């Protein structure tokens, strides 16, 4: 059983804290949770909401229909009440204008005033909600005491207690308590994955929706002894990271959309200098300012081709928080092994959706720096750009050895890094760099296959849409005669094509599912394999595509 609750109100009403309390208590009761956040690009006011789906079975997506609403203002009622299921409920202040058979109009605001803190009226509503689901207040008191102190904590708890008595229980839902669960979003997972990979330097320029990566790292800066530096612009951010990496540490930057455009020249530089670099690109609907707090997958081709000329690079798209953690570690290892830029792609949907997952298994983390252990001497000189069969030159850290110097050169250069205009050397060095792509292809991870082995219809998708597509396939196979399957791509460049080529032979219809207007992934598939998708399900209004929407489009055959 899964329930879907919306908490809505204006920014500045403490909704984030309220949602966090609810998420934590549901998690500690053993429920699976999937939360999405919808907010406007403003600090105060506007209409913002959280949708919290929870239950005792797997949840991979958000859902549009609601079981309940906590309305902290009138606008929440106006905007969302029509999304309630027939037996859904609303909890709101007694003065809210609302016509609904299951409306709990409670004295939230007046009671909050009696408690002595107007803003705790949300907690009163939360207390009522917990009571409705027959959940006690024991756990949530601990959570409040972890987050708040002193009188404020007391007022928050008091508000919950009062609210809890206002409604009696109606829903019974039980789950087994699990100790090894965490509640996390993909950007926190990227940050934690980077720290586990030995990140020592992060520089970034704030830009929604990428900022979550920097926020978590900055909170851990002193404990983890990692430099988190706010750069003067995105060009500085990536160039500082490049300098730190050239000097020998693992370094990363994160940005979005237009910030990524500013970084693109330096992505080429990293390819030319052969300096490892991990770049997180959190997509939002662009171009220009676009919809800053919304979601899109519009930068796929831009990321793949994000450099002047031709360089070896890898693009990994993140599917969910669990994937984000392990793929970040893999990105650092691949960047170090091939001395190339690796781009990790996420988006606002991933950045702002929090979910319960199995705690990360740190034993799976591998950190190999791939540094040269060779003893160089006058007879065996170190050459930064030594031409090798793999295209990978031995890497040493500047300053570590008295006999060996490292010369990184942005000009075309010879094996020592010395500038050259020789046609022959240009060919040799360009080939050397691009040869790394051949070996990189051996590292590729094929997409995840989900659904029926004998499916007629195969959906292909990438990155954050993997979760809703996975849920859609599960539900479609439950209640349709036709059988469905999906390939969920993480690696997209170079494109792992073996599984796609194999599966495509036995199906009737191939549909790409993407959050962009032009079917960019379908186009990449066509370029790399010659396979043409029969149809596309595309969405580009800035709002995340849900499993239900995918199902409707697949069933309705309106997939265009």
């Amino acid at each position, binding site marked *: 059983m899964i329930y879907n609750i919306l908490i809505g109100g204006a920014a500045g009403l403490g909704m984030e804290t309220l949602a966090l309390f609810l998420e934590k208590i549901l998690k500690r009761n053993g429920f699976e949770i999937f939360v999405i956040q919808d907010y406007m690009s403003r600090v105060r006011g506007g209409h913002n909401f959280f949708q919290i789906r929870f239950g005792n079975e797997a949840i991979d997506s958000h859902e549009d229909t609601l079981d309940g609403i906590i309305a902290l203002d009138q606008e929440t009622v106006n905007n969302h009440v029509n999304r309630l299921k027939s037996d859904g409920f609303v909890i709101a202040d007694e003065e809210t204008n609302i016509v609904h058979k299951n409306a709990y109009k409670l004295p939230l605001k007046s009671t909050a005033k009696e408690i002595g803190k107007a803003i705790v009226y949300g907690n009163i509503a939360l207390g009522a909600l917990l009571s409705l689901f027959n959940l006690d207040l024991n756990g949530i008191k601990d959570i409040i005491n972890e987050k708040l102190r002193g009188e404020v904590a007391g007022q928050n708890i008091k508000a919950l207690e009062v609210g809890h008595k206002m409604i009696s229980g109606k829903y019974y839902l039980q789950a087994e308590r699990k100790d090894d669960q965490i509640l996390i979003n993909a950007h926190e997972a990227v940050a934690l994955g980077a720290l586990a990979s030995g990140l020592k330097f992060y520089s970034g320029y704030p830009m929604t929706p990428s900022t979550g990566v920097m926020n978590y790292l900055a909170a851990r800066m*002193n404990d983890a002894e990692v430099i988190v530096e706010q750069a003067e612009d995105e060009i500085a951010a990536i160039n500082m990271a490049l300098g730190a990496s050239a000097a*020998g*540490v693992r*370094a990363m930057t994160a940005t979005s959309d237009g910030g990524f455009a500013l970084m693109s020249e330096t992505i080429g530089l990293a390819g030319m200098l052969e300096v490892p670099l991990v770049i997180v690109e959190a997509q939002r609907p662009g171009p220009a300012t676009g919809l800053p707090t919304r979601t899109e997958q519009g930068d796929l081709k831009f990321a793949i081709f994000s450099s002047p000329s031709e360089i070896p690079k890898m693009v990994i798209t993140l599917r969910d928080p669990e994937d984000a953690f392990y793929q970040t570690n893999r990105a650092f290892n691949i960047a170090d092994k091939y001395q190339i830029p690796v781009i990790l792609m996420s988006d606002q949907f991933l950045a702002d959706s929090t979910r319960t997952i199995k705690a990360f298994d740190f034993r799976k983390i591998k950190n190999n720096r791939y540094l040269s252990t060779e003893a160089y001497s006058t007879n065996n000189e170190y050459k930064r750009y030594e031409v090798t069969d793999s295209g990978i030159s031995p890497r040493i850290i500047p300053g570590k*050895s008295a006999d*060996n110097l490292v010369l990184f*050169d942005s000009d075309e250069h010879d094996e020592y890094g010395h500038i050259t205009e020789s046609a022959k050397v240009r060919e040799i060095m360009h080939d050397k760099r691009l040869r790394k792509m051949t070996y990189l292809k051996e590292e590729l991870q094929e997409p995840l296959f989900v659904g029926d082995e004998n499916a007629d219809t195969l959906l292909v998708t990438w990155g954050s849409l993997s979760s809703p597509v996975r849920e859609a396939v599960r539900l479609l196979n439950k209640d349709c005669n036709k059988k469905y399957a999906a390939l969920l791509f993480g690696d997209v460049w170079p494109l792992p094509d073996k599984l796609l080529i194999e599966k495509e032979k036995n199906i009737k219809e191939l549909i790409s599912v993407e959050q962009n207007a032009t079917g960019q992934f379908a186009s990449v598939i066509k370029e790399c394999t010659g396979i043409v998708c029969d149809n596309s399900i595309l969405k580009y209004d800035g709002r995340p595509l849900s499993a239900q929407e995918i199902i409707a489009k697949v069933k309705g055959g309106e997939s265009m």
Partner: protein
Amino acid sequence: MNKNIFTNIETAWCPGCGNHSILSALKETLNILDKKPHEVLIVSGIGQAAKLPQYITTNGLSGLHGRAVPPAAGAKIVNKKLTVIVNSGDGDSYGEGGNHLIHNIRRNIDITHFVHDNQVYGLTKGQASPTSDVGFITDIQPNGSNNTPLNPILLAIALGCGFVARGFSGDHEHLINLMIEGIRHKGYALIDILQPCVTFNKVNTYQWYQERVYKLGDEYDTGNKLLAMEKSMEWGKKIPIGIFYKEDKPDFHDKISFLKEGLPLVDREIDFKKIYEFMNDFR
């Protein structure tokens, strides 16, 4: 390749170019400071001056035009043991890289920035630079440059730079002394070096500079910021060279305790257990 001294390597600069003198002054400076080649990292952007890392046997990084300072900053932050020097031109440092100059002075990272300032673009063949004088005629400024020249000395002082100096490529000994002081200074040091471009700047020639430059004397107080600002505005018939302003203050590393103490970041191991415990944030 002999790496024990800062070897002579054939350059692609014009005969008579001020860059030769700056390069040889830098080599002498590093010798005097007893720096070993592997202890030094010279970072540049793109331009004629920015070819310098090619012509000296130290570690080097030639990056993108205008972007010399950010990688230098990143490298110094993670390896405080490296002597990090930026050598780049006026277009690179003050034009395309202006934003990075401003903000790295604010960061006060311990790097020394030598700007080869010939008041003209060399690599792209003779356009006006941010420091070109008003009226400077070029192929694409046929009516002369209309823009107010950037005053790097005044700008750096105003930004709180702890070491601001001007040198002249024609005064080798004086330049070496500035370089020594600049590298010794803990924090961001900006040294603007006047140099002739014998090919593209027929106005600000060796002789032009020679007639105008004079040294700030021993009586000049390098700790007086207002005086320094006043001096920095002197340009024309007389051009002062020397240290305009000097102030010791905490640098980037001093302000972050885990950076200040202990090994350079590049030499530190991951505390895996600690990172594992961070996961409790999400339980």
